[in-house]
């Protein structure tokens, strides 16, 4: 015995595979979504990826304010050393190579996850982690040598902004390394479960985004920063 008002049956979303209502007729039928929320929530895959994308963009905005602080404070060296006396571009080039290669191996890891290959997933993630570790080691060595030469973050406004910007990126990479370790353990212990693949999607987005930030850092902080003062805008 139905108590429904006449005509409402057509308005009800048809039962979807996950009660989402978005895909009533299988994966390859056009969705019967008319907007205005009629189709129910988007699939979880979209929500996870898009939500993490929004987080990454907010992270990029945070970095942009550190970039702005560096650009504004760049000339305020308080009589201390300036960028062109401090930075070793060979070190920067090697760091850049490490991070670029690790972004590539991270992409290979996502392909291996797509193929459900435990061996290649673990190998690609291990390579990603080792390259990331090499990057962090080089960065820490550079920071230690700067501080030993009396160019620590408290020396001048320029150096404060430099250590904040580059250090913040380094902290992100370190956190990414921890996350990478947990991803390897989860793939090993739990296999290619769907929720773990969602986590891995987020991890790979995070790792690729960090490399984009590093492109800004090596170009603007190191390469533009060490130009002779008369060539700077």
């Amino acid at each position, binding site marked *: 015995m139905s108590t429904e008002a006449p005509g409402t049956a057509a308005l009800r979303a048809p039962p979807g*595979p996950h009660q989402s209502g978005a895909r009533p007729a299988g994966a390859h039928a056009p969705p019967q979504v008319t907007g205005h929320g009629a189709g129910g929530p988007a699939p979880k895959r*979209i929500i996870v990826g*898009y939500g993490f*994308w929004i987080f990454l963009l907010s992270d990029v905005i945070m970095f942009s304010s550190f970039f*702005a602080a560096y650009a504004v404070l760049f000339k305020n060296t308080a009589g201390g050393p300036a960028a062109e006396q401090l930075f070793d*571009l060979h070190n920067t080039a090697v760091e850049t190579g490490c991070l670029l290669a690790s972004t590539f191996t991270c992409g290979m890891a996502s392909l291996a996850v797509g193929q459900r290959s435990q061996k290649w997933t673990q190998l690609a993630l291990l390579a990603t982690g080792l390259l990331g570790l090499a990057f962090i080691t080089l960065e820490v060595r550079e920071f230690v040598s700067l501080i030993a030469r009396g160019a620590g973050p408290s020396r001048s406004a320029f150096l404060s902004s430099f250590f904040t910007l580059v250090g913040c990126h380094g902290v992100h990479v370190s956190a990414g390394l921890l996350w990478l370790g947990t991803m390897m353990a989860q793939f090993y212990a739990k296999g290619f479960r769907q929720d773990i693949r969602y986590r891995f999607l987020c991890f790979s987005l995070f790792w690729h985004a960090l490399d984009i930030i590093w492109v800004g850092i090596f170009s603007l902080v190191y390469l533009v920063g060490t*130009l002779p003062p008369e060539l700077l805008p």
Partner: protein
Amino acid sequence: MSSEHDFDAGSNVGEDRPPGSAGRERTLRQEVLGYALGLALAVGLTAASFWVRGTDLVYGPGLAMALLVLAVAQMGIHLVFFLHITTDPDNENNVLALAFGVLIVCLIVFGSLWVMEHLNHNMAPMRELMQMQP
């Protein structure tokens, strides 16, 4: 429809796609080649940045702008080849969010530089400020 298959199946008709997942059905070989092409372009642009920094061939005062352009180009390469941000209709939401992010980043960076430049310019030198004290 198995939910196992849902994740990597690529875009379905009319459905959105999260960033980081490749679009059309492609073979593994094509995917690997896509990443390799992205890596080659990124390495090329990085090498170009370091080369431009060390060469005398580029007009000196234009060096900073050249490096900025190379950096933006490389960021674009990363977005397209590694994060799989494209102009497909199923990527519209990702691109709109990115565009808003870029707007805010430009406002923060260029706004800060502009305002602080004028503040520096309008501020009296420190010595005169000290003399103005009673």
